[in-house]
């Protein structure tokens, strides 16, 4: 976990504080129909220098990734001075490299890149930077800080940590509490980070024990299948953390099919269906930990600021920060209304 802690170290230095402040600006509280397309000014709401932003992301085959695209698009539309060059999403590394190289050749002013695979796309990030095009690296981080001007992304470790703390607080008075975890795609580093954060948080509560963990693969189908098995394996437990609200649809289905309601469930990511269930409060799902897709809108703000050579509002700095880690807020019944508009389908 060395890499995680080192990054967290960096964050705790300055960025964590500023990120919170910035986010307050980026993801507004005012509800609007479009997720995150809010009216809050970012760098400078007044039209400034024309900026062409190239955006390259993976294939939007998943609710969260789809929300990323929509956030980026609607945010860019809001600015008269921003032209967004968006590529066809691709999960193929070679194809994505080609798309980004095309954007470099088109001489866009700023690049926003959500790589299919951060490590594999480092070289093309470096290439863009050398060509004088600042890169905003979204979420999946490049291998080298030289490959981006600014990184903005979610906090997988923090997600697990906050989920663990939320569950810990709920169960702290319960002796011999049992917790299970439904993880995401196990071959992804982010899944390992989420699990590590979750485990680290639970260490603070000696009365709680994690008794089982199974990995699904972010799909409804796998969520249902794995959850059904977990329910059969654990006839009694007190809380469940599910990494991903998409697979959570399946997990909830399995819970319903098994007729179980004797535990509390915490989700992850922040899907609209999860928010609605939390608001209704008639099932096991009591909270979800954010991994906000609004980061794409923020990335557009950052890119625009970079293109216009400005800083961001709410900070004293002349330059925008090199790294921004978003806070994985816990959304429960008390604050769900505030986040409802950011929920993705």
């Amino acid at each position, binding site marked *: 976990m060395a890499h995680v802690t080192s990054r967290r170290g960096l964050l705790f230095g300055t960025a964590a504080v500023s990120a919170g402040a910035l986010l307050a600006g980026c993801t507004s509280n005012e509800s609007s129909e479009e997720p995150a397309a809010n009216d809050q000014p970012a760098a400078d709401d007044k039209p400034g220098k024309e900026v062409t932003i190239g955006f390259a992301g993976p*294939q*939007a*085959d*998943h*609710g969260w*990734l*789809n929300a990323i695209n929509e956030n980026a698009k609607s945010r860019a539309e809001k600015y008269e001075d921003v032209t967004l060059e968006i590529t066809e999403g691709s999960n193929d590394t070679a194809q994505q490299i080609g798309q980004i190289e095309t954007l470099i050749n088109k001489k866009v002013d700023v690049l926003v890149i959500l790589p299919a695979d951060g490590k594999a796309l480092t070289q093309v990030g470096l290439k863009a930077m050398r060509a004088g095009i600042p890169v905003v690296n979204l979420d999946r981080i490049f291998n080298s800080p030289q490959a981006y001007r600014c990184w903005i992304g979610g906090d997988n470790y923090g997600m697990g940590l906050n989920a663990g703390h939320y569950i810990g607080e709920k169960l702290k008075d319960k002796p011999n509490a049992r917790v299970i975890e439904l993880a995401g795609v*196990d071959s992804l580093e982010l899944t390992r980070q989420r699990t590590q954060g979750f485990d680290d948080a639970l260490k603070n509560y000696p009365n709680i024990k994690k*008794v*089982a*963990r*199974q*990995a699904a*693969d*972010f*799909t*409804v*189908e*796998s*969520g*249902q*299948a*794995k959850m*059904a*098995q*977990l329910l*059969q*394996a654990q*006839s009694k437990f007190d809380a469940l953390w599910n990494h991903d609200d*998409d697979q959570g*649809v*399946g997990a909830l*289905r399995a819970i*319903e*099919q*098994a*007729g179980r309601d004797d535990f509390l469930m915490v989700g992850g990511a922040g*899907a609209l*269906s999860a928010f609605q269930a939390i608001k209704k409060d008639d099932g096991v799902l009591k909270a979800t930990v954010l991994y906000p897709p609004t980061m794409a809108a923020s990335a557009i703000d950052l890119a625009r600021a970079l293109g216009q050579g400005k800083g961001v509002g709410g900070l004293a700095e002349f330059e925008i920060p090199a790294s921004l880690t978003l806070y994985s807020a816990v959304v429960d019944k008390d604050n769900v209304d505030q986040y409802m508009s950011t929920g993705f*389908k």
Partner: protein
Amino acid sequence: MTQHVSPPRSGTGKATPASEPPAWRALLFRADVRTFSLLGVLAALIVIGGITRPDQFLDTRNLQLVLTQASVIGVVTVGMTFVIISGGIDLSVGAIVALASVWATTVATQEYGFAGILFTAVIVGVGCGLVNGVLIAYGGMVPFIATLAMLASARGLALLITDGKTQIVTVDGILNLTERDAYVLGIPPLVLVFAAVTIIGWLVLNRTTFGRRTVAVGGNAEAARLAGIDVRRQRLYLYLLSGLCCGIAAFLLIALSGSGQNTNGNLYELDAIAAAIIGGTLLSGGRGTIIGSVLGVLIFTTITNIFALNNLQSDVQQIAKGAIIVAAVLVQRRTASTTT
């Protein structure tokens, strides 16, 4: 050799063992050696499951769970088995399941309720099968390529329809299918569908002209053609059948997961092929059994279940799955070589 005079016509159409000459029984026995070895593997798994997690594994609910989880891929595998026996391959099954499941769960389709969803899932499956079949039988395309193209386009279309979003099913009739109230004599409706597809598949393969033609086309397409069988039409029907199975499986998956998602049916093609192969179906065609394939599916599902109940992680599960495939095929090669 003893000669048996077969009865002129047995009224039931059921061949009694006594009327079967010894050589046929030897053939039957060899088929059974394979089936028995699979049953042996399954029995061994049940023992392992029973020892490691007796309370959770040996439980009616768990049996219901395993069979339910096996139903979706099981129905797909029955169709796949026919295709492989005919000497073909269908790589598009997972993608067809995905497309059928999202098409059947769009807001527009859901307005037509239970029947609308069922109808759409089946029609989309059959439609994709039709395209596969026409391309292969009449377009002269290699099954591998034609169904690979279908895989790509059906997945793409599924993504286009959903826009990457999860489509939640709100039709109660569908959602209630997996409720315990809907169980018939303790058997979940999904499992009943799986059982029906298996039995019909077995009967069609072993007792009908369609099944015979399938085996003949797979065993020797040229000989089948010269014997007067319409090989191309048979191939078309086979991919239609596989598409139909995918449509049914998509409907089961909709009921099970309560939703439609473009990621549904992920890697079904490999799971179905693997189950058919460990079930004794020749990848080159001409031989295979429905029972073997279904046992293959049950073995895989049981392994997954045992691993989950023992809280073993997916890396270990995948290694074990690979090892089982290799072991099963090796065992079968041994039994096949000692009996011929």
